[in-house]
């Protein structure tokens, strides 16, 4: 791991040193302000417009910066750091192409409500608008995918802007904030005065719920015969896992957790029905379709969860708990809206929560369904099955790793076969579905959680979208354990082409991709290949024991499909069970 020299001095001494009001450059203000926000690691890539910022880092040992090999790697790493720690992730990129290279990462964070502060350089103020070298209107480009953005005009504004940006990013519905700093502003000297207050008239997220609405929810619970909780990412982001557990313990209402909600509640609990939606469990989807009360806890009724919207939860009264009022009623008409932070809402609710007494028959039925219809696949003795590999990874990490994924079949198998018991253990791009996210996000997760095992499960497609970051794992000895479920094909596209486009397999063949073992070794990363179960377990365990980063190329069956599956346009109880029947 790269230096954490900051821990050598006392925190108070350092804060005193950083907050000293003196005339310094905009760049120094930026670094000091980031340190004062508690930033312990920044991911970035230098360039012309951020030369002053990188100059200020030179010899400034308090500031920890990790040089990635692509700006996209930097922002996904910052994202993985943020999701796994709950702290704001920070990345730095230069103007123009540097800035546009972080656009995908900003959209990824925006869709999944991840707190990031993205710093971009820009050309000098007098050149803005002239199509100058490496100029891009990054504030304009990212307006639809940021929670807020700033173009800094004066260095003296930096302390306020940075403090506001951190506040905005990590409160309310979290999200990415962009700070664009022209080159002359990063050079300009001004009096640095740290800012600790925020005065934003237009920004006052509602945290505490309206008690009348919570009472209405209680009455609905009291009457409900088939109540169900739909738990989403909001429960993880607000740190509400304990409150959620207490609420479920008191009410004994069964629950399902969305892709981003995985880890908010222990998977093994008898009331937990698993994942809902497109590749969810038979039980979770049928529970939603039969519920008479559906309480959404920080979930936003994404189309991958609801399937055909007009046929979603047709019998249910809907309670929607969300920090973002705009989510309420956006997709699904809501009977009882509760605006507030999930943690705060559940704290209020737990004070008076009672067991849902009319729901015993429902609980019994769901238990039976769960026992009859678990996730299933047909194992093989001759070929490695990706589901088996994920289960083996779960077993060998005691279900206790932080798992990051890329996007596609392997992501769904990871969600299905790696049951989580702790929040902030699961890092995946749900909303945007960004390939190339899995591996660099693991680097960020490891930087934020040096004491936890971090496993990155990838496909052979997505791994090639950010493979260059193997360099920073190797050089900085960041011991991420990378599993590639290598099926030589863009598996999820293959699956859709098979099931929906009549076996017309168009441009999905990844055969001839690089040898991942050699690729990893070229970067100085230890690598293994496995083609059968025995090898798989042996080399994976060796990879885990290895003190540095390691890559394992699992050669898995090519034509495996993710089941169950709800095709687009179907209601979620119309499931193709495939091999899982």
């Amino acid at each position, binding site marked *: 791991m790269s230096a954490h020299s900051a821990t050598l001095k006392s925190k108070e001494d350092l804060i005193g040193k950083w907050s000293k009001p003196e005339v310094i450059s905009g760049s120094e203000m930026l670094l000091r302000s980031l340190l004062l926000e508690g930033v312990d690691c920044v991911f970035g890539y230098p360039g012309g417009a951020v030369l002053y910022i990188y100059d200020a880092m030179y010899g400034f040992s308090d500031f920890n910066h990790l040089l990635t090999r692509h700006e996209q790697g930097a922002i996904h790493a910052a994202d993985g750091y943020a999701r796994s720690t709950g702290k704001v992730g920070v990345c730095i990129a230069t103007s123009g192409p540097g800035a546009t290279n972080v656009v995908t990462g900003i959209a990824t964070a925006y869709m999944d409500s991840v707190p990031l502060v993205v710093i971009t350089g820009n050309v000098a103020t007098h050149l803005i608008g002239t199509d100058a070298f490496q100029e891009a209107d990054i504030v*304009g480009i990212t307006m639809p995918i940021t929670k*807020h953005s700033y173009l800094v005009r004066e260095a003296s504004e930096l302390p306020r802007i940075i403090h506001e940006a951190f506040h905005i990013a990590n409160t309310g519905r979290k999200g990415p904030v962009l700070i664009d700093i022209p080159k002359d502003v990063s050079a300009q000297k001004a009096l640095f005065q740290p800012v600790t207050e925020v005065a934003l008239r*237009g920004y006052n997220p509602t945290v505490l719920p309206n008690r009348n609405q919570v009472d209405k929810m209680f009455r609905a619970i009291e009457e409900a015969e088939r109540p169900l909780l739909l738990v989403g990412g909001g429960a993880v982001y607000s740190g509400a896992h304990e409150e959620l557990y207490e609420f479920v313990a008191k009410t004994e209402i069964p629950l399902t957790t969305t892709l981003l909600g995985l880890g908010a509640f222990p998977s093994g609990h008898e009331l937990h029905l698993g994942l809902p939606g497109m590749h969810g469990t038979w039980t979770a989807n049928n529970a939603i379709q039969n519920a008479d009360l559906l309480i959404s806890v920080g979930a936003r009724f994404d189309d991958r969860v609801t399937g055909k919207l007009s046929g979603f939860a047709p019998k249910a009264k809907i309670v929607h708990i969300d920090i973002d009022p705009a989510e309420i009623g956006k997709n699904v008409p809501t009977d009882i809206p509760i605006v507030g932070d999930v943690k705060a809402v559940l704290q209020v609710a737990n004070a008076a929560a009672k067991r849902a007494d009319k729901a015993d028959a429902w609980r019994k039925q769901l238990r039976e369904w769960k026992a009859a219809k678990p996730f299933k696949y047909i194992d093989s003795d001759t070929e490695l099955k990706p589901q088996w590999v994920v289960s083996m990874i779960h077993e060998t990490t005691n279900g206790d790793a932080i798992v990051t994924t890329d996007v596609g079949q392997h992501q769904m198998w990871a969600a299905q076969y790696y049951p989580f018991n702790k929040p902030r253990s699961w890092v995946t791009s749900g909303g945007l579905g960004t390939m190339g996210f899995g591996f660099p996000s693991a680097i960020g997760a490891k930087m934020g959680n040096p004491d936890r095992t971090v496993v990155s499960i990838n496909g052979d497609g997505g791994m090639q979208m950010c493979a260059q970051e193997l360099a920073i794992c190797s050089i900085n000895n960041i011991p991420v354990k990378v599993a590639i479920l290598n099926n030589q094909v863009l598996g999820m596209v293959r699956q859709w082409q098979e099931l929906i486009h009549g076996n017309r397999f168009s441009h999905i063949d990844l055969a001839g991709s690089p040898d991942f073992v050699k690729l990893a070794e070229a970067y100085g990363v230890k690598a293994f290949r496995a083609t059968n179960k025995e090898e798989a377990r042996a080399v994976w365990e060796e990879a885990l024991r290895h003190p540095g980063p390691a890559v394992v190329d699992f050669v898995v069956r090519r034509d495996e499909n993710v089941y169950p599956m709800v095709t687009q346009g179907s209601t979620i109880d119309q499931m193709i069970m495939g091999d899982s029947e």
Partner: protein
Amino acid sequence: MSKHTISILVNDQPGVMQRVSGLFGRRGFNIESITVGSSEEPGLSRMVIVTSGDDRTMEQVQKQLYKLIDVIKVVDVSANPMVARELGLIKVNAEPSSRPEILGVVETFRAAIVDIGPSTLMVQVVGDTEKIDAMVELLKPYGIRELSRTGVTAMARGNR
């Protein structure tokens, strides 16, 4: 689908117009007209947007606007009695022979002639959208050379 006049109090910051109009664009909300200018409070501007949509869309318009950090307050002024006005400038063909007739129309509408050219008149008309529409219709037969309208600005009546 009904028409709504939304008044939005915003921080007078560079890019705020882009944030608001961009939001309408990407969420598929319609903009019939948009005006912006200073408000009663220094540092804040008031935008008035005429839009249309069903109740659910209008609820989303308001909620999505409130998500913008630079938006301070959003009011559907058309939900209550309001005054809504726009200004139109109409340059109309006016040979000396047809001028008395045009002046007659202008007077009836309490509009004003604000410029006289060798063969044109510029008419300024203030009123609600329907009044300006009517004025335009009446001047059409003479030949409208150029038409420029400000879009609606609006305010609730009484103490609201």
